[in-house]
């Protein structure tokens, strides 16, 4: 009798011990996730941030919100992009020769996407924010979807398909379903080696004179104090303007276009690291650039072709084939493009055509 009592006591003790230990573990794991530093919280509506004055859709920045442009922009279905940098008061960007400029904590990058409709009106679709969270100095993404009334944009994480009819730069009409990315789609292009990072604002991409201004963008920023550490401009790398044939060679314009449109993924540590196809402007290894390089995991996307780039033969080049498609599984970039960028295809086609065949 006594033995049975002891054994049941023992079992009772051990089970309660298990429960206790488990709770201890749980407690341990939850206490790790709470932290004291103030975490950045994305606001519900774009207007809540007070980045702009007047009607929101005019995107007239308040003081401290700086518009900027890139010498060669990413193609996103002929959309019109407005970009802004918001720095915490009294702080500046630090120049870096490679990669994105060095942003202070709490910096915000704003990128607004709109299109021109058949009535030649600018219609807002979405606004993307990148915020450098002061809690851990890591970049966070959020998306805002514009309402039908065009009065505000609302926080939206799941992406959206927006049927639109748009006019391109030549006034040609395109009917498509614009793809607003979800927040994981954003991360896909913005993550390198596990770290989320801005893509556009690198010194080399900003190093030019914006349309409608007379001073180099970086010089301008230095004079207004938002950029420090800029060396003499002759020392600063420059990504060509892909449309400027008067100043830049075909080779340079093509490589600039590929960098901006492909190299956020097609770079070491990027989303397409596994492919071995690296299209950064600085890449020099012909095999990594795709010259006579066989694909690795393109599957049907390769369209039955052998090499990424066949010098002298654009029609046999997988790279061009995939730029020239809108089929999921074939189309490149995989995201945010539902229309073929004719002008981009023409540039890359001409570049491949003129590549020396011995190369």
């Amino acid at each position, binding site marked *: 009798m006594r*033995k049975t009592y*002891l*054994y049941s006591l*023992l*079992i009772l003790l*051990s*089970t309660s*011990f*298990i429960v206790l*230990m*488990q709770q*201890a*573990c*749980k407690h341990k*794991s*939850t206490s790790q*996730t709470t932290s004291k530093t103030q975490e950045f919280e994305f606001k519900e509506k774009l207007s809540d941030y007070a980045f702009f004055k007047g009607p929101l859709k005019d995107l007239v920045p308040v003081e401290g919100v700086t518009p900027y442009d890139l010498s060669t922009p990413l193609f996103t279905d002929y959309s019109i992009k407005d970009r802004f940098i918001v720095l915490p008061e009294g702080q500046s960007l630090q120049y870096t020769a490679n990669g994105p400029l060095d942003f202070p904590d709490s910096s915000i990058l704003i990128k607004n996407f709109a299109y021109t409709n058949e009535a030649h009106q600018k219609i807002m679709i979405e606004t993307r924010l990148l915020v450098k969270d002061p809690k851990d100095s890591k970049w966070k993404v959020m998306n805002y979807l514009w309402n039908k009334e065009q009065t505000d944009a609302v926080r939206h*994480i*799941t992406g959206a*398909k927006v049927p639109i009819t748009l006019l391109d730069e030549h006034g040609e009409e395109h009917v498509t*379903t614009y*793809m607003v990315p*979800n*927040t*994981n*789609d954003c*991360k*896909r292009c913005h*993550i390198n080696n*596990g770290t*989320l990072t801005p893509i556009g604002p690198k010194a080399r991409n900003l190093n030019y004179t914006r349309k409608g201004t007379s001073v180099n963008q970086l010089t301008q920023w230095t004079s207004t104090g938002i950029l420090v550490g800029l060396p003499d401009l002759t020392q600063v790398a420059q990504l060509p303007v892909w449309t400027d044939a008067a100043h830049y060679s075909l080779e340079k314009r093509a490589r600039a276009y590929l960098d901006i449109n492909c190299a956020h993924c097609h770079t070491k540590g990027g*989303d397409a*690291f*596994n492919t*071995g196809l690296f299209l950064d402007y600085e890449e020099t*290894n012909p*095999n*990594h650039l795709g010259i*006579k390089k*066989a*694909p*690795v*995991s*393109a*599957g*049907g*996307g*390769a*369209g*039955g*072709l*052998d*090499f990424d780039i066949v010098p002298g033969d654009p029609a046999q080049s997988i790279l061009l084939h995939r730029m020239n498609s809108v*089929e*999921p*599984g074939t*189309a490149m970039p*995989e*995201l945010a493009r*539902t229309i073929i960028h004719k002008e981009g295809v023409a540039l890359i086609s001409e570049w491949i055509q003129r590549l020396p065949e011995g190369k």
Partner: protein
Amino acid sequence: MRHPIFFKLFFALLTIAIMSACTGKKDQQDTYSTVLSFKPGDEAKIEEAFLSIKDSTSILLQAGKYEFDNLSIVQVSHILIHGEGHDKTILNFSSQSQGGEGIRVTDVKGFTIDGMTIRDSKGDLLKISNSSDVKVTNLHALWSQADSTSGGYAIYPVLCKNVLVENCYTEGSSDAGIYVGQTDGAIVRNCKAAKNVAGCEIENTSNAEVYDNEFYNNTAGFLIFDLPDLSKRGGKVKVYNNNIYDNNFRNFAKSGSFGTYWGVGNASPGSGIIILAASDIEIYNNKITGNNTAAITIASGFATDDKAAEKINANYSPISKNIKIHSNKLEMGADFPKPAYEHRIGQVLVATQDQLNRLDPNRKNKRIPLIVYDGFNSNILTKGTDLNPDSICIDQPEENLFVNADFQHIATPENWKPNMNIVPFQCK
């Protein structure tokens, strides 16, 4: 010490208690801070849950049919996505409208997907990249049509660390059913693959074990590849206790949905196992039967790429080496499968059989030997003369076992001398 047994028992139970609490692996894996459950019709909520997923979350998809465009999970740790079984929870991705895959998992530490069927995406079905401690279990991944409209890979972990693929089934992939790429540490076991171009492929992956699987009715059953200019080198792969049979399916990787140089478009219908540019491989105790072009093919990068030598670096060597093949059951049927006659490499192997029989009438028109070696060895690079410079070792009892196919000289028939002398390649 009135109750020595009591104390022993007490300590035993105490030990179990401690282990099951903090250090116990099982416990840790089965406990999630957030536990979510959804049913069919909740697709929009599920997409949102995937996008806003936090560390340590399990998501149950209850029995029923779900329709998705695509799903993704990025940069979290300790995640479980599970269904109620492959015949109960079914996710259909036929409406995929952009992106490269149905389900995409990136940068996740500790990811498990279990107990469901995923099907009919435009691109790959399940791609897991840059992740560690990945388990894909009891998952069926398939395309309704086994043709070039199917996506490339059904189950596709790439650039991962420690991957387990277990009790899975794949069908209809236009490239490989199970494809482990550029990964260190992988186990594929108790899986089945049929009607894919390649049943299973281990590519630029190191420290892999592939065992207790059935790969059948594919173009090629099982492949071990290294390709040039990738993030890492493969090798150290053990392949055992598999049943690899009747892989004679036509190669439907389009007119080479891969061209003609690399990749699985090159796999001839009728191939059991293909080793390409890989090293430190052991293949044993497998049943490799009814693959009617070649039971085992050992090839080098030179067989498909005349520029292979230029691509040699720390991550790539085009020549297969340290290959140990022993104790398998090897058998082949009476003739090549029909689709082999229409395939570029298939035709080369048919020609090899013809050439052997032409050179040696005493063979009496026997089949091509069970193991085909392309004959490109490191003598090409070193100008050496060793008959087996790359440590190929074969210990098999079968007749008509081995041919060095001498592909180097295939272009000049008068010099082309496929050679059946196995002596230099017998295990010492």
